[in-house]
């Protein structure tokens, strides 16, 4: 992580928070239950629930038993989803009746969140390339009772069709440096070789997503890593080729703007429209997201 010292505005806070446990956050599955009813049920079981100030369907949930081990979780009334991971779908802002593609959907947290935003009306294609991960995706789609979802298994880079979706989410496979609070061995940062390899995959995924979305449709690109090679460089790649334009998005939480440069790599001022989340911003994981529009 040392290589990020120059780009992280408050390095001391960043390093300190990496050593603190992550508060458990749950997202109410509003397709099945009202947030206040869920809150009442979990509080009756001894959990302390505090709603997120920027999303009242979500709670920091603390209790003496693991939050994933309740009847309500089993019934699909909520999904345990880290706070930063709630943002890409907020940025995507899908609505009822739309056609939406989640290109790298497993294990299904964001896909089921998209379904909520769509009020379970429309077409949600939840795709993943890994058969093993598809099983987790299916389990969550079924558990949360998402009826508008069609689950497909296809490498994202070669997903069939063209220009048919209103919105596409590319929550790309990444080196996961942003989740070092959960997995302490990631504190040392990812290998550069891994980052480079993933960056190539991410560029192909994003380029394909921009072919799959309708003209003027929205694509959100997100990762849970801090590596600029997997974030700003990927976005720059598609902008330079005229495949997309960046759309400014103001998150409802403290954040930093995307990098203009890193080391000797220049990304340009346009990349300030992207968003970086560092774990100290609101006691969460780290991540990156960009909102892009396909030209008409």
């Amino acid at each position: 992580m040392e290589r990020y010292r120059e780009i992280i505005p408050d390095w001391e806070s960043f390093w300190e928070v990496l050593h603190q446990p992550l508060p458990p956050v749950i997202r109410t599955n509003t397709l099945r239950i009202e947030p206040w009813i869920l809150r009442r049920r979990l509080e009756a079981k001894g959990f302390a629930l505090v709603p997120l100030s920027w999303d009242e369907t979500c709670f920091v949930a603390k209790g003496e038993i693991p939050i994933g081990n309740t009847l309500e979780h089993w019934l699909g009334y909520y999904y345990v989803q880290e706070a930063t991971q709630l943002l890409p779908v907020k940025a995507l802002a899908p609505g009822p009746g739309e056609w939406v593609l989640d290109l790298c959907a497993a294990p299904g947290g964001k896909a089921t969140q998209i379904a909520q935003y769509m009020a379970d009306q429309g077409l949600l294609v939840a795709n993943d390339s890994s058969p093993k991960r598809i099983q987790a995706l299916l389990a969550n789609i079924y558990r949360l009772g998402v009826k508008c979802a069609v689950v497909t298994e296809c490498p994202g880079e070669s997903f069939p069709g063209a220009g048919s979706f209103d919105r596409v989410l590319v929550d790309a496979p990444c080196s996961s440096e942003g989740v070092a609070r959960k997995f302490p061995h990631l504190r040392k940062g990812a290998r550069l070789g891994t980052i480079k390899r993933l960056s190539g995959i991410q560029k192909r995924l994003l380029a394909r997503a921009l072919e799959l979305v309708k003209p003027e449709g929205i694509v959100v690109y997100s990762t849970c890593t801090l590596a600029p090679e997997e974030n700003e460089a990927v976005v720059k790649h598609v902008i330079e080729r005229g495949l997309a334009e960046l759309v400014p998005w103001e998150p409802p939480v403290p954040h930093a703007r995307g990098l203009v440069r890193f080391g000797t790599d220049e990304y340009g001022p346009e990349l300030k429209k992207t968003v970086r989340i560092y774990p100290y911003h609101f006691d969460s994981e780290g991540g990156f997201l960009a909102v892009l529009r396909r030209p008409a």
Partner: protein
Amino acid sequence: MPSSADLPEGVERLLEEFGVEELPGRLVFRHGAVWLTTAPEIPEELRTHAVGVRLCRVQAHGLKPTSFGLMILGERVRTRRVELSREDLRELLLGRPLRRTGLPQGYVALCLGGEVLGCGEVRGEMLRSQIPRARRQELLVALAAEGYGFSPELSKRTGTMGTKGADVETQEDVLKGAILLEERGRTFYEHAALSAQSRGVQEIFSLLAREEERHKAYLAKLLGELLRTGKVAAASRLPVDVSAAVLTEAVRREIEAAGFEAAAIYAGMALEERAVAFYAEKAKNAPPELAQLFTALAKWEQSHLDLLAALDEELRQRVWHEQNFWPLD
């Protein structure tokens, strides 16, 4: 009601049997199953695994409703509902049939507190669960964790279960609370041992169940002494803790990552954490003869916690390194 002419025969009859009058979506037939979906159309070029939620499967003897299908229909299922107590549900989840008279033959909706949990089947007088094994195990863990969890309210009750006033905790109250704690631990580990697939993990859970039973027996003996004589002797001969030596290489190799074992280990850790906290707190305020015992029990439960934490770490590393896991959500 069924909206597609391509549906297999019997779908309408099945829905009528369950009293379902209106569907929250349309039905499509794919992959040998009937699916409930709200998707308006499905692009033909897509190779699909699922289209919404699978409502029923087509089998040789007819249609079988799925547990997820019944769950999503929820209140729309008006008939063939079988309300269960938590104890009955636990038996079914452990794979043990229940003897019930007066139930309709065939598939039924298993319910708890009015909420549909999944599919059951009645044959003769025997009721069996048809909830998939993995889901059964998850629910067992959830019920065990909830049942043995101390909510603030429950903790209060546990601490003041005697009849000598709500604010004064007697030695008798403390011992009763401790016995209850050990009993909960024993029951949890017994169920976990029954459900675990890995033999090594089964043995660990069985061993922990036996240890909790020995704790309980010892505490019960002290309670009997207290009730007979009005005092307890200093705890001099505590049973030996044997848990530390059981996490062998063979066991590590056998652990089933991401399966029931992972969830049970996690729930067991929460249980032990509470037990350590309980005994440590009671030791602070207990008379010397009990304080010694509670300190020893706190250490003992801590050793269980350490064992489970080691198992948990083993799983975590395996998931990360061997299963190509990307923690995106």
